[in-house]
């Protein structure tokens, strides 16, 4: 073999313009949101503060000074989009991270230990899987958040985790059932290692790549789902900007002021596209069977 496996991997990543675009979008957004999140560098990305009212410049169309125009209160839409990025990027990471943590631990042990534990975990996961998840999550967040505005975003995230973990439980369990038949796990068992140690050092590293692929793909979906939560006012408390909520607020200004709702939605779309392109690129690397089939 003339090429090392690392260079094959890199070749697959960079040989595909879609994956490059996806990773590029993500990197650009991460840098932008990091700059926006830190007050001393905020002015590098946006000219105006996100919540300074300026009724003289209300409903101004997109121009050079206001790239995305202004809203009804004269706030710069571009500045608000930029200020919303850190939150809108962090939330999918938190939700998917927690879902993966719960699903991975439950699914791994269920698959490895088998017996009644496996049966119980799977049935509970099936139960949650069978719910119409988004409507359930929206209801949970609305019931819990109805009286506490500041906690709404937390409840929304919890609700998304409640409907998110069963998928990873089933995924991890299915992988573990395969992995535990492999010779190296048998060898570890024969050498007398404890069950927890085997799972931690031999089983989990083997399913990490598959989980990472689906988590990346899921990140884009979660971003869009959370934007629906924000759209219905179940996100962070105003006046903190939030992309989904800006779209909802902007709807009331139609048909005149279309930029107020259009640009936040467009930014959401590009960000979700970044996650999905990067995720599919990762899948090509880790799952050669699916290479080129999308």
């Amino acid at each position, binding site marked *: 073999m003339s090429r090392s496996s690392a260079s094959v991997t890199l070749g697959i990543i960079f040989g595909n313009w*879609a994956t490059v675009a996806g990773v590029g979008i993500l990197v650009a957004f991460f840098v932008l949101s990091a700059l926006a999140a830190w007050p001393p560098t905020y002015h590098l990305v946006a000219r105006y503060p996100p919540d300074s009212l300026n009724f003289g410049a209300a409903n101004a169309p997109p121009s050079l000074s206001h790239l995305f125009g202004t809203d009804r209160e004269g706030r710069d839409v571009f500045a608000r989009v930029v200020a919303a990025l850190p939150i809108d990027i962090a939330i999918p990471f938190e939700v998917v991270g927690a879902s993966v943590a719960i699903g991975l631990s439950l699914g791994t042990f269920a698959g490895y230990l088998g017996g009644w534990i496996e049966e119980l975990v799977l049935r509970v996961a*099936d*139960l949650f899987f*069978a*719910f*119409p*998840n*988004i*409507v*359930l999550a*929206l*209801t*949970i967040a*609305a*019931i*819990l*958040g*109805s*009286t506490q505005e500041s906690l709404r975003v937390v409840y929304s995230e919890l609700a998304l985790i409640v409907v998110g973990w069963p998928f990873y439980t089933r995924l991890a369990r299915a992988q573990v059932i395969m992995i535990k038949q492999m010779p190296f796990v048998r060898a570890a068992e024969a050498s007398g290692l404890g069950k927890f140690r085997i799972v931690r050092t031999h089983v989990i590293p083997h399913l990490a790549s598959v989980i990472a692929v689906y988590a990346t793909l899921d990140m*884009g979906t979660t971003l*869009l789902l959370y*934007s*629906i939560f924000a*759209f*219905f*006012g*179940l996100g962070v408390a105003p006046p903190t900007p939030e992309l*989904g909520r800006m*779209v*909802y607020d902007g*709807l009331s200004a*139609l*048909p005149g002021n*279309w930029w107020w*709702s*259009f640009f936040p*939605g*467009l930014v*959401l*779309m*590009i960000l*979700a*596209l970044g996650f*999905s*392109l990067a995720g*599919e690129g990762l899948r090509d690397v880790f799952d050669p069977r699916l290479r*080129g*089939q*999308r």
Partner: protein
Amino acid sequence: MGLATYIARRVLFSFFVVIGELLIIFYLTNIAAPDPAVIWAGPESTKAQVALVALTYHLNSPWYVQFYYYIMNVFTGNWGTSPLYQQPVISLIEEYLPVTLELTIIAFVVKVGLEVALGVVSAMRPNGVVDNVIKVTYTTVRSAPPFLVALGFLLIFAYGTHTFPSSQPINPVLGATVPKFQFYNPIAGKVTGFWLIDNMPMLNSLLVGDWAAFSSAVSHAVLPIATLILFGFGGIVRLVKVSMLEVLDQDYVRTARAKGLRENAVILRHALRNSLLPAFTLMGLVFAGLVTGSLVVETVYSYYGLGYYVAQSLLTFDTPSLIGTLILITVVIIISNLVVDVGYGFLDPRTRVGY
């Protein structure tokens, strides 16, 4: 395992799902909530209203007494009163559900047909120009939040070219024959006397023979349906394409080609049937997705259906309405999943083994 046992086990499981969801809701509203009476009465209610609600829902009793009344109410159709509309939730559902059902079913049929067709087309020449165009299109479209697509259509086709109306399911002046939309004409245009059909704007006006109302209802539904179709677009395309490629590789397809069948016949009559099988498992998910999408789509277009009703309840924290619609949507989706699973078990006997 026989088909009957398989169906029985699926039905039993679905029943447990409903019970499980009722338990979660009961826990959230009556136990976890800091003040259950406020949850049921609505955040804007007065002290006296809250006290009245606590009395009617037995909220001052121990939790098992509350649970008894809660379950009894769910099964007897007493789903509470909406603080926002000041009407029983069940009658609001009767009004709003048919509108959404009509919209969702049409969107479902068109969406599945379109995606299957695109899947077949892209399997004909994988990585060809057509395949790549389809791929790029659905990758982009499925990354768009549903409200962005709705907004785009609204700006272009409603406010821009004025081809389609921007809001409502029917022109209120023309809607006189549809009971739900009799804003101007109080004479009911009931056809069947069956609320589910009578409250569907398109079907009812068609049955009454009111062509002006029918064409108005159709033109009002075009943009919402188009938006719903594009929500989560591409899942079926991809699955049909992958399984089509697999099927085209199999011996019986080669035999069909070898005996000189035309390519169209090979694809449409031999390969398509088998490649649709995996896509069939997605149907339940697709339908559930459309129900979710309808929340956003109906909000943007002010299309007064169930999705609009749920959205208004979310925005105003109208808990009784939310719970009623959640139970309803759960049951609808579970039934649709059941139909899909049973259908799949019927079509492909191998799946029955796992249950």
